[in-house]
């Protein structure tokens, strides 16, 4: 009888202890205050909506591929697979891309030349700023001084030299090529860059940005290095 009583009390006390501990955890959790104002929330919302629409587009593409597979499964599955591989290769930057685009040449500013200033290499921060400015538009293929910019590209300073994909960028002048899918996109990018503040940022470093008119057929080089997959892991199952 006594043993039974003791075990009952133990179980009840265990439950009480658990509940008290959970309550303690819940009460002591510092609640992060939301201090964003309406404008920041709107921006957040617009970011999320953009993400939403991008995801929808992606779903559409994947659905297309799926239906292509289904159509082709009877005829030639290899063909569909090959096409997918091609798509993925071009998305990863392993293939050359040809299309409408613009060419930007980074040159020493005329004032610096006239004053006989020493022209130094471009700073990585400035180059990153330019690439970010370009990347505001989606679906672009960029190469900097012959080096293709892919998702894993690092623009950084190595021993005092600015490098792209660990290849040093020439001291200006050098060229940046940007190819997009349609002429419309290229024109949009051209107008955006022409009115952008990037010219002022470059001028501070005694450089000038010269942007060509949109060209019908421009080719950006393929990414010629091994991709670094160290951080990638295989997803198991569905």
């Amino acid at each position: 009888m006594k043993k039974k009583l003791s075990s009952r009390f133990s179980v009840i006390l265990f439950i009480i202890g658990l509940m008290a501990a959970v309550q303690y955890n819940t009460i002591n959790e510092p609640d992060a205050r939301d201090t964003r104002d309406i404008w920041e929330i709107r921006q957040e919302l617009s970011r999320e909506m953009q993400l939403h629409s991008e995801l929808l587009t992606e779903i559409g593409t994947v659905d297309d591929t799926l239906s292509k597979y289904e159509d082709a499964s009877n005829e030639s599955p290899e063909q569909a697979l090959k096409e997918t591989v091609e798509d993925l290769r071009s998305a990863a930057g392993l293939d050359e891309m040809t299309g409408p685009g613009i060419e930007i040449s980074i040159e020493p500013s005329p004032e610096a030349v006239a004053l006989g200033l020493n022209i130094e290499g471009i700073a990585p921060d400035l180059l990153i700023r330019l690439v970010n400015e370009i990347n505001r538009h989606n679906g672009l293929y960029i190469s900097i001084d012959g080096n293709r910019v892919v998702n894993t590209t690092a623009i950084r300073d190595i021993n005092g030299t600015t490098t792209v994909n660990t290849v040093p960028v020439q001291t200006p002048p050098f060229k940046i090529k940007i190819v997009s899918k349609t002429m419309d996109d290229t024109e949009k990018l051209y107008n955006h860059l022409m009115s952008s503040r990037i010219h002022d940022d470059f001028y501070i470093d005694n450089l000038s940005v010269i942007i060509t008119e949109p060209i019908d057929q421009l080719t950006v080089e393929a990414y010629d290095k091994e991709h670094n997959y160290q951080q990638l892991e295989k997803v198991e199952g569905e």
Partner: protein
Amino acid sequence: MWLSILGLLLGISLGLLTDMQIPPEYADYLSIAVLASLDTLFGGIRAHLQGVYDDKVFVSGFFFNIVLAAALAFIGVHLGVDLYLAAIFAFGVRLFQNIAVIRRILLTKWAEKKEVRELQG
């Protein structure tokens, strides 16, 4: 006795170590549940000391009180009346009463033991 304390320690350490949390909206319900279970526990101890302990009453009372208290709080939230105050009040008063009774019983037992020892000595 020791088994019970072990159970309590096990429960607390499990709760703290797993860092379990419930949504803050439900914290009220849990606090009432804790109060109800404490009430039942002290009721059980009192009944045991008075010699009227019944297993079924104790275990059913434990769960029934918790559910009743949570239900009262739930209804209160939906009616806009702070009904959980009623539960807190009822359990709080009973808790004090039970503890008072337990204290008196223990005091009496202690006094009796002392008397017996004095008589023996």
